[in-house]
């Protein structure tokens, strides 16, 4: 077994063990849901590496379904938007199917073109009330874009090479841990912002460069990605925090169905698509 397969397996098994301990140990763990979330990704990677890419891909599809479901559970929608929401859920298999068939063109347009055209139509077919239509369409489209489209990029990255997706998850996890440790710091002025960018920066650069033989990303691009990822994580977290605040998710109310997945996912929302398109463009991937 090559070393990179072994490493993926080791991380997946390690996270599974931690997950098992967590389930037996009890419910409250400060990092609990984040571990579960990362575990889901590495489970998908391990399955894709060992068995079939298709199966790993559908695990990520399930994660994105759970994220979308949680988001829809928190937003205020009208009864008659149900058809539009059904359309949003139906877009998940639609898009992930094109990931398994490696049809890039259709993958990239499926949601922005077809779903975003279908959903307004479905919402307008749902009932006779016209008031609130724009808001409903916006709510549904936004959730679909963030939780399905952006997540789909991780899957597509995985189709190039498992480690291209895995290094992204690891880099983002490093940034997240540092953000978590710094969450109580109240440095004055711009120091707070600078610390959040410059503290994870050496770690992500080192990690990306160290993993470059496995990810097959040239060292130069690895350095650029290591510099890029902390900034993307910050953007994602900042946007996510605003979304969370509007949905009423606070640190003390986070729970199952109440922002748990969104809270973990927000760092990936910018990182996944941008890193994907960076790699695809510069490495000339299919």
């Amino acid at each position: 077994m090559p070393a990179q397969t072994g490493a993926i397996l080791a991380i997946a098994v390690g996270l599974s063990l931690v997950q098992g301990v967590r389930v037996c140990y009890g419910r409250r763990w400060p990092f609990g849901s984040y571990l579960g979330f990362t575990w889901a990704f590495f489970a998908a990677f391990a399955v894709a590496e060992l068995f079939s890419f298709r199966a790993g891909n559908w695990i990520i599809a399930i994660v994105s379904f759970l994220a979308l479901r949680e988001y829809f559970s928190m937003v205020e929608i009208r009864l008659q938007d149900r058809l539009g929401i059904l359309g949003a859920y139906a877009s998940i298999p639609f898009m992930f199917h094109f990931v398994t068939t490696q049809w890039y063109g259709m993958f990239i347009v499926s949601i922005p073109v077809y779903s975003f055209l279908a959903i307004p139509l479905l919402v307008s077919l749902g009932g006779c009330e016209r008031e609130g239509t724009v808001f409903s369409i916006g709510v549904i489209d936004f959730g679909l874009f963030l939780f399905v489209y952006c997540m789909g990029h991780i899957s597509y990255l995985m189709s190039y090479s498992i480690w291209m997706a895995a290094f992204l998850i690891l880099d983002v996890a490093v940034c997240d841990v540092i953000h978590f440790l710094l969450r109580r710091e109240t440095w004055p002025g711009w120091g707070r912002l600078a610390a959040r960018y410059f503290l994870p920066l050496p770690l992500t650069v080192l990690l990306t460069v160290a993993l470059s033989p496995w990810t097959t990303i040239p060292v130069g691009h690895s350095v650029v990605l290591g510099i890029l990822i902390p900034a993307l994580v910050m953007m994602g977290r900042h946007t996510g925090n605003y979304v969370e605040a509007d949905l009423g998710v606070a640190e003390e109310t986070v729970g199952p169905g109440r922002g748990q997945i969104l809270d973990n996912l927000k760092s990936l929302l910018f990182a996944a698509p941008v890193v994907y398109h960076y790699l695809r463009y510069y490495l000339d991937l299919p």
Partner: protein
Amino acid sequence: MNAERLAALARVLLHLAVLRPLVRLYCGVHVIGSIHLHDLPRFILIANHNSHLDVLLLFSLLPARDIARTHPVADELYFTRHPMLFGLMNFLLQPVWIRRGQAGRHDDPLREIRGLLERGHNIILFPEGTRGRPGEMQAFKSGLGRLVQQLPSVPIVPVFLSGPERVLPKGSLVPLPFWSQVLLGPPQFCTGSPRDTIRHLENTLIELSRSGVARRNPRKRRRLAPAPTLAVLGIDGSGKSTVSRSLAQRLSVPGSACLVSDRLEFYERGELKPLQPLGLEEARGMLSRYAKQAKSLATYKIPKLAELLLRDRLLSDVNRWYAPQLVVQDGSPLLNMAAWVALYDRENLDDDTLLKAIAVLTGDNSGLSRNDPVFRQIPELALLSRLGLAHLQLPRLLFLLDLPAHVACARITSRGGPRQPHETEEKLGRLRQAYQRVVRITARKWNIPVMVIEGDRPLDEALAKVLNFAQANLEQEPSHDHKSAD
């Protein structure tokens, strides 16, 4: 006998292996307070009823040993319309069927329920009777009260379900995936009259529904009216920064106030709070430091003008990012600019022209043509107006710290440090007159309350009067009433 036990086993297995995982995968179930069901030998579950899914959700939170001996109460007429469903329900859920609206048999279901409870079985009951409109609770039916009166020792566990009304609301056929929150309350024992029991249980359930966990965040719209602005005017060395700082601090006691001075400060309930930095403020600070290094009035003018413009723009940023209930300004950019116009003025402007200039600076160009004499007299005004920079804000309250120029000069000298070009006795004297004039005409024209403070008196004495004045004048403004906001 054996067949019955086999059926019970199959029932439990079906629940645990098929029904429960399906329900959990499709609509996530978050149970809060499941500990209230532990160690109860028998119980009555009551829950709000919005969806057909409710009963499945309630079954999915039962301990395994209770699955085969729990019976929901259901309307027979409704379900016999679908024979398949009726058979499935009979096998999986073993309901107690009631026939509504059949006189004579009125007591039958109650007797059956009582019999089951006496044998140690559990009952699931929806006291609203039928499924209500999504998210609304109806009045409870009276049968529950009579049942509880007959069996006062059976604990009643109230459950509030939120979510199923979105998964499968009344009238829709396709269930959609949404999370469901299941909130269990502590077991209740009721001994009063049936009517008291009903009222008590209704209130318990309503209280559960209000406990916050079950509710979604409703869409709110906050009114983003800018906070009223207080401006403290005065020449350099008059102590206006001290006055404005203590004003901001004391006026923030009922809520919050932001001080726009050489530095931004935010006070909440009288205490200084850390602020997130603003890029505009950093730029303004740099410009202000640069302006203070100027050697002559001519080189002071442009950076000072830019700084005043930025300081005014900062007001809207402060409102947007900090949302204070009150803004205290150390100097008003608009009136400072007007005073400087009067100061630089070589060809003695009359009051009307000055008022016109102030009006243009606030963005009010009505009644003025492009080649009005005011633009010729003050060329900078035409430039600002053409660049679209002339929309400065008038403060709502004005304070003028009045101080003779020689006292101010003495204070500046004793303070030490480098002097700015205009900080001479002669120029400060002219600036003082300019301020007095500007404040006088502005207040008259726009009806702004003004208070003149003698700057050479002790500050503490003046401050009490200033506070009273500010509070009295702000209370007249309905927009400052923070209780009626929202």
